[in-house]
């Protein structure tokens, strides 16, 4: 924890040191909303699963300041995200970058779902094409001529007929 904190502070101070010149340029300072728009896409390594724009810790405050400084230097959103990724690793991004090993996270679920769908479809086909003679026919509760009819209503009407 502490180590992270110090490295953030250090990075922040360095950022201020090296950007002194651009501060002098007379541009409108970036608004909080501009900073948050980028911060919301970042996660600091300490505060698990809390995006940077809403994280209340000091470390995250410093990161937000760093984004502000980089914005006032005229850096683009993409450059800033790239910088944080290069500095602290892929984990600062909201999801893994689409490259190499990380493709697994994007490709595996659809593959499994597709497999599940194929298995389901095949077994359903198998069930439906079985000869009807084999059927023991236990299930059919309603037995009504209109299949979409509520089986409870059907049963109820049947009961009522018997009552009369």
């Amino acid at each position, binding site marked *: 924890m502490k180590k992270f904190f110090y490295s953030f502070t250090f990075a922040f101070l360095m950022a201020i040191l090296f950007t002194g010149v651009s501060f002098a340029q007379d541009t409108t300072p970036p*608004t*909080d*909303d501009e900073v*948050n728009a980028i911060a919301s896409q970042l*996660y600091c*390594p300490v505060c*698990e*699963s*809390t*995006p940077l724009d*809403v994280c*209340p810790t000091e470390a995250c405050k410093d990161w937000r300041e760093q984004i502000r400084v980089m914005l006032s230097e005229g850096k683009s959103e993409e450059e800033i995200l790239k910088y944080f990724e290069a500095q602290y*690793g*892929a*984990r*600062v*991004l*909201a*999801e*893994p970058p689409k490259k190499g*090993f*990380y493709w*697994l*996270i994007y490709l*595996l*679920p659809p593959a*499994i*779902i597709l497999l*599940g*769908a194929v298995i*389901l479809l095949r077994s*359903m086909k198998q*069930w*439906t094409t*079985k000869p*009807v003679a*084999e*059927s*023991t*026919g*236990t*299930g*059919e*509760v*309603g037995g009504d001529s*209109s*299949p*979409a*009819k*509520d*089986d*409870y*209503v059907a*049963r*109820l*009407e049947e*009961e*009522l007929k018997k*009552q009369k």
Partner: protein
Amino acid sequence: MFVEFGYGVLLVSFLVAIYSIFAAIYGATNKSASMVESARRAMLLTFPLLSLSAAALVYLLVNNHFEVSFVYEVTSRSMPTYLKVTAWWGGQAGSLLFWSWLLSAFASAVTIRKWDRDIEFLPWVIVICSTTLVFFVGMVAFYENPFTRFWLVGGNVEPHLFAPLNATLFTADDGNGLNPLLRHPGMVIHPPMLYLGFVSYVIPYAFAMAALITGRTDDRWIRLTRRWSLWAWLFLSFGLVLGGRWAYDVLGWGGYWGWDPVEIAAFMPWLTGTAFLHSVMIQEKRGLLKHWNMILVILTYALVIFGTFLTRSGVLSSVHAFANSPIGPLFMGFVSISLIVSIALVIWRWPDLRGETEMKSMLSREALFLLNNLLFMSVLVVCFWGVIFPLISELFTGQKVTVGPPFYERATAPLFAALMFLMGVAPLSAWGHSTLQTLGRSMWKSAVAAVVVTGILFVTYTKNIIALVGFFLIALVIFVTLQEFWRAARARQRAQKENFLTSLSRLMGRNRRRYGGYIIHISMMLMAIGILGIELFQTSTQGSLAKDEQLNISGYTLQYKELASWDDRGEGVNYTRAVVDVYKDGEYIGELNPRIDYYFDSQQNMTIPGNRSTLNDDLYVLLVDWQPVSNAGATFKVYVNPLVNWLWIGSLAFMVGIIFAAWPDRDPAEEPARSGVARSSKQTSAAD
């Protein structure tokens, strides 16, 4: 004294539970009724024993026994008594004891029932419940012990259960205090609800295993546990909703769900549980899918254990945390062994579990239910993979990654949309057989109405295509479901010559599960309105305001008036509270008071939003920062969350629906519809 007593009875209950396992197995295999009875009594004995142990822990918590490390970690002198009691489940060790206590209560409740012709299940239900209990009690007794005390050993303070050589007891002046986030009323009841849900699912699982072992693989086990699985689902759902509301109220990020691994851990058993609720109906009505129901209940059990482990321990945060914690490998071992054994049992009984009928049509209700199951499983796959991927990545590449909301949202949104569509179609399909024609005939009116609603929304509210698709599906489901109520009640009204409301209420009373289910469907759609609103239309802005300065967002104007900061020594909290005037379209509509509470004991901040909630939108204001001396004033973060109130309204309706469906009446599994109808017609004639 209380420490030794609490730990002592804990150990005794551990031994008693072990005894009940062996006695039950012996009794079942040697057909010895007296041994089974002995096992049953042992099982029953664990409940009073664990209650005593828990009472000892609560006594220590309430009476500031800070020599006990668990008490030191989760309470402090300034906490009110009710919070000291609930601190019981505020930490890992206590919550595992809480889990065990609940399980022994439920297992006792289930073994007390009259068994009659189901007596052959009894020993195996005991075996499964006791094995689970032994695991959890063992975990509490030997790894996560809430009765560990601090000892002064050669100048160092060390936690030990019993006094080491030449040690004196060390008592801290005051405790750490419960994490302030956990002091919210929502958080006081959220974990017990979740745990009630988790633990209730052990019972259907125990019956399923008993059915496999004894070979009575008909749907008896499902009928016996139907109410258990409904109540389990109720508690789990309630727990999830409370968790969402709590996040919205105290976490201070303007949302209710962040796809955090801990949240997903509770969501996963809910997914399999929901799939199970639907697919058991296929087995009951059509005698199909016996294998699949077994697999679902096994998965739910495994995910419950996995979830318990994930929510409290935090050991899945990294490979190192996992490897270094003693309970990580144990939990994983237990989950794996129970999975392997259960699946082996299913394979062993595979031929007996073959379906009694065939699927006749791809559009029949059973086929659509299967599709529903596929979709729930798909959401599960996404969630599970997302939760464990950071670990896998760390293991193989050495790099940790974050899997955040964008991943889950993109992956699950189409799946949820498909589920909604099914919700609109499936109630209209018939068991056994449906065709596109029959479906179309019963659906077209609702579909047209939904198109009209979507058209109106297109003109008046939004041009966002995703939102419009969402609203169309919501409208479709609501219309179809209402039409179902209408159609059935009208049919009954005609037949019975009652007035419409009487027909409707009697109809619903006679078929609680179905109509409770429909209420749940409609509630889900109300919730979906809220979710669409906040996900697609949320706006936010942040700004530092000097006194009387203004900030504009989506038609609202906020004016910063003043800020006060004061200590409440009694409660141990420093409050900083801002006063913000709110105007809508230039008109004054009230003031909001966003706050920051600082807790001295745990040295933590809590950001409490000022929230103005209407059916149309929520104005949610957070105090982010303030400068007491300079005239820069204070920084606010403001969210406008459209429609989010529908999420909470839907949640309440949802609870009503489940309670309606699960409310106990005379053993409905045994009661044929016949007697119900006969009785009601008698009542009608009496009323006439």
